[in-house]
């Protein structure tokens, strides 16, 4: 079952400009893996080589912050990808 992922503006280069996309998975790791299959390279902009969420990225599942990639994701959950912005 797919969940809805809300994509931060700086990451929309990967989703061809889409603000909301669908991705499948029962955990955050699976959802991000599915996103990367659909939009190659996107996962690495959020997750580093040590499988940590990068410090300029925050990820929220059902409005709760996900601190690890093992965070369960239910089909009705929304996943929000938040990215630091610098424009003023």
């Amino acid at each position, binding site marked *: 079952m797919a969940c809805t992922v809300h994509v931060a503006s*700086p990451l929309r280069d990967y989703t061809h400009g889409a603000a909301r996309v669908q991705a499948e998975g029962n955990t955050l790791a699976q959802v991000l893996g599915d996103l990367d299959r659909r939009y190659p390279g996107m996962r690495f902009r959020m997750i580093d080589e040590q499988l940590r969420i990068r410090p300029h990225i925050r990820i929220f599942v059902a409005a709760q912050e996900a601190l690890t990639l093992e965070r369960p994701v239910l089909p009705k959950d929304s996943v929000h990808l938040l990215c630091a912005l610098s424009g003023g």
Partner: protein
Amino acid sequence: MSISLSAAEQQRYSRHLLLAEIGPAGQLKLKAARVLVIGAGGLGCPAALYLAAGGIGTIGLLDFDQVEESNLQRQVLFTTADIGAPKAKRARERLLALNPQLQIVAHQTELTAANVQQIFAGYDLVVDGSDRIGTRYLVNDACVIYRKPLVSAAIHRFEGQAMSYAPGRGPCYRCLFPDLSGAVLPNCSQAGVLGVLPGVLGAIQATEVMKLLLGIGEPLLGRVLVYDALTLRFDEFRISRRPDCAVCGEHPSILAPADEPGFCSVEEQRRVVGISAVELAQRIRGAGAAADTAPLTLVDVRDPEEFTVGHLPRAVNIPLTLIEQQGLSLPRETPAVFLCRSGARSLKACALARRAGMTMPLQLEGGLLAWREAVEPGFAL
């Protein structure tokens, strides 16, 4: 010193005085307040306008830049006649024209670790509307260290974020985004921005200032507000103070504001010389002018995983994070072109190369996305 509202002020602020949450006592608080706005840009202009209209007694405007024509699409304090004029000074004139009863201070300077303490000492609250991530951290750290409330916002294309900080009452900006080393965050001049977007966020910042000064409502403390203009959605997310935060945590490692050496100034980025995808293709094929046909070193600053997916022939992969940490190991005279996916990381890499003394580094404008668009449609990214 006791202050009061004159008859003219009572008339001007009459709609505030009608509000039980403000009234004469609240308006006097606003009159006594001193608010510093960092950046007279897309965010700072509307925020400062509402602060001045609302009667904030002392407003400082800090910006070292001049008005450019491309600013006028969103920086609503300026007019066409202001092009080339110093922003802080011209903004001061506009705000005084709106409300001559105020003290408006123009700081036509760049905020640095050397001047932040002295400048902040004259204000009770800071509004961050800067367009440099390094300045955002400097402002945040100074607000935490000098115990000043801070109202932050930032924008990118059609999205904006806002949050407030008050000493002892919640997380700071570093709790939200602890460290941006390795991150590349294009500003408005690189990524583009919907002109009205900073109007929304700047008005939210002014709202937050009023609430914090008056002690009313529920400020954005411990919450980050995210606005998407395309979907017209507001989302908010709760964030917590990090016990290990480098500046507001239990054992802070940042004890004094510091300039961020890894971040490039606006001036440094402006000095970067670009090369278009078409021109680069010509140079690679040797089709340019004879004087320009020296072999180019193509430095791909993307991460190795991205490089593996696809890269230009003979390009070398030196990730930006490596350049930031270890500097460039290329000879200074190398005719190098820095490139990445969209142009943001290579801009920073190119600026760092110039800082390191490289004589003529170039940056692929629009990155490999532009290359795919203009030169090689099947290029894998």
